[in-house]
């Protein structure tokens, strides 16, 4: 008799049913571990995706084409001249392109009636940024008003610090790349919910307004943010663009996987002048937050592992008890003509079935837990908000992780059940039959 015989499954199922209480306890424990695994995986994926979406939309795109313009050897500006031509090349040569946008970059003093602060500025062409609306959680005002040349978006934290609300007028003051100081007046048109550390130091304003502040021409911007349909193509796209730009006569910096603001010192020490391009991807630009995801992964994996071991030991014990109770039955079946390997298969089937039912239940509980967590829209702790660029905990269940949870835990339980089953199968039939208790 093999595991393909329905009788094997029938015996396993009925034996589990006969010991309902024990089965429920064990199955419950397995379900809890599975549910935890599913929920933790959901949190992990959710965080990673939140980070990905926020970081790429707000800061980098999937692939980022930035660069430095140096009028003298020791003074660099983080700008890209001739961006329209670059955009053409991107649209022509990137096969997996979803869309591409340009984003101005600035660093200026923002002055209100009651105070001032040094902030970064993203110059945004809101009409062409569909993703931006999804990531930014508008609290008051209108994102559409960023189409006004003097439109400014602040985050709640900044608005509070400067004591301003939608409609208030502020002043930006910044040194232009030509060396003189310039100021422009701006109007707060939107206030958004905080998004991680970004909300403490970055603002967004109309890209034309930003050009006016820095007295830049229409062909100049801070960076191109390229969005791909398939994220696994990051490297080839980067490689391809390096080639395309070089062929079109653009100079490029050596590949350097660091965020742009860490590169000024190095660039200023080099002797060249003029424009050089720098191609990075979102992981480079957000490397400083990736460690958080890594720690989270390690912690979650450890937790799951420890839980699985604890549950595993419990299961092993219960299997021993179950097999001891059924020693006489084993002896009988062996006497009647059941082979050792069939006895082994019979108990392993039982372990497998228990694992499958437990994990199945666990996935349901995990799903419910996920839904509940999302519905509760739990506020993330401040520290987590900073790195994840999200205010709320977002849990994203994925089929891959669910299949993994079922497979991994059921597999572990089945493996564990082999040991006592093997002992049972090896007993002499007569020894097994004369067993008392």
């Amino acid at each position, binding site marked *: *008799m093999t595991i393909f*015989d329905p*009788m094997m499954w*029938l*015996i396993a199922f*009925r*034996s589990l*049913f*006969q010991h309902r209480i024990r089965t429920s306890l064990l199955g419950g424990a397995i379900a809890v571990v599975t549910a935890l695994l599913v929920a933790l995986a959901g949190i992990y994926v959710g965080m990673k995706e939140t980070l990905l979406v926020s970081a790429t939309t707000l800061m980098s795109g999937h692939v980022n084409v930035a660069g430095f313009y140096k009028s003298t050897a020791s003074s660099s500006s983080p700008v890209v001249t001739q961006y329209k031509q670059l955009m053409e090349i991107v649209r022509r040569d990137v096969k997996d392109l979803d869309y591409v946008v340009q984003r101005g970059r600035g660093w200026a003093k923002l002055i209100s009636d009651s105070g001032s602060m040094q902030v970064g500025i993203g110059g945004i062409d809101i009409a062409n940024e569909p993703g931006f609306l999804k990531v930014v959680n508008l609290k008051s005002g209108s994102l559409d008003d960023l189409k006004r040349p003097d439109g400014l978006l602040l985050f709640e934290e900044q608005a509070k610090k400067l004591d301003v609300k939608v409609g208030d007028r502020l002043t930006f003051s910044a040194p232009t790349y030509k060396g003189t100081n310039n100021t422009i007046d701006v109007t707060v048109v939107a206030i958004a919910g905080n998004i991680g550390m970004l909300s403490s130091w970055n603002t967004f304003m109309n890209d034309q307004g930003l050009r006016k502040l820095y007295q830049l021409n229409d062909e100049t911007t801070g960076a191109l943010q390229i969005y791909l349909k398939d994220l696994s193509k990051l490297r080839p796209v980067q490689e391809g663009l390096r080639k395309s730009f070089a062929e079109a006569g653009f100079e490029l910096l050596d590949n350097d996987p660091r965020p742009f603001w860490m590169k000024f010192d190095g660039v200023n020490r080099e002797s060249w002048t003029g424009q050089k391009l720098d191609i990075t991807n979102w992981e480079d630009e957000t490397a400083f937050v990736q460690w958080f995801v890594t720690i989270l992964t390690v912690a979650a994996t450890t937790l799951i592992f420890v839980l699985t071991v604890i549950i595993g030991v419990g299961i092993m014990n219960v299997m021993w008890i179950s097999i001891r109770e059924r020693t*006489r*039955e084993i*002896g*009988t*079946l*062996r*006497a*009647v*003509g*059941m*082979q*050792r390997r*069939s006895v082994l298969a019979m108990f392993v089937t039982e372990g497998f079935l228990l694992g499958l039912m437990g994990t199945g239940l666990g996935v349901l509980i995990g799903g419910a837990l996920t839904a509940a967590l999302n519905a509760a829209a739990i506020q993330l702790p401040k520290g987590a908000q900073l790195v994840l660029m999200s205010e709320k905990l977002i849990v994203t269940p994925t089929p891959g992780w669910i299949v993994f949870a079922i497979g991994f835990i059921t597999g572990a339980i089945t493996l564990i059940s082999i040991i006592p089953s093997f002992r049972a199968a090896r007993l*002499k*039939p*007569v020894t097994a*039959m004369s067993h008392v208790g």
Partner: protein
Amino acid sequence: MNAIVSIRDVVKEYQLGTTVVQALRGVSLEVQKGEFLSIAGPSGSGKTTLLNLIGCVDTATRGVVEVAGKDTAKLSERELTDLRLNTIGFIFQSFNLVSVLTLFQNVEFPLLLQRKLGAKERRDKVMQLLEQVGLHTHAKHRPSELSGGQRQRVAVARALVTDPLLVLADEPTANLDSTTGNQIIDLMKTLNQQKGTTFIFSTHDHKVMQHANAVIRLADGKVLERVSAREAVEHALSLGEAPQAEARA
């Protein structure tokens, strides 16, 4: 060669701590095909031990045990299991049915192990046997819903479903009242006569013994004698047991 069981100079020793218990001390005997043989003897005389050796669920310390022409000492564990499955049927003192299976499934079980018959043939075979033991109406019941006598009848059906050459029964009536016990022995006897299946059963009840063709009398791990049922009953009675009203010679 008509001997289905042939045992020569068999010794079985058990290690009990530091002492060695000899359960069988040089037993030799032959059982012919079609016999309805009883093994009798006082408690501790070695009846169970002998049946276990014949049934290939235990191995002799010394001596030769041949079943269906095969020297069991030379068979692997797997071959012994196959021999049990295909050649030997077991009826146990305490029935030993699988509690989670229905009567039908209990009887069907050895056929599933054999993998010889299709579902329909298995069904017919099982139902035919359940009918023979008078339990075809209870096919879907679980053993726990039956009386002891009914359970033992299921065990008889299970032992016979594979058409074994040899059926072994260790005190099959010990857990039953005497009327039910007699019914079980009658049932076994009928099957013995209809199918020619060899039966070896142990008992120390002379009312059960008297149904046998022959009785092997064991004492202290040795075969005393092989006698007719009548002689065995007379011997038992001479030991001072009062004759029972329903005892038949």
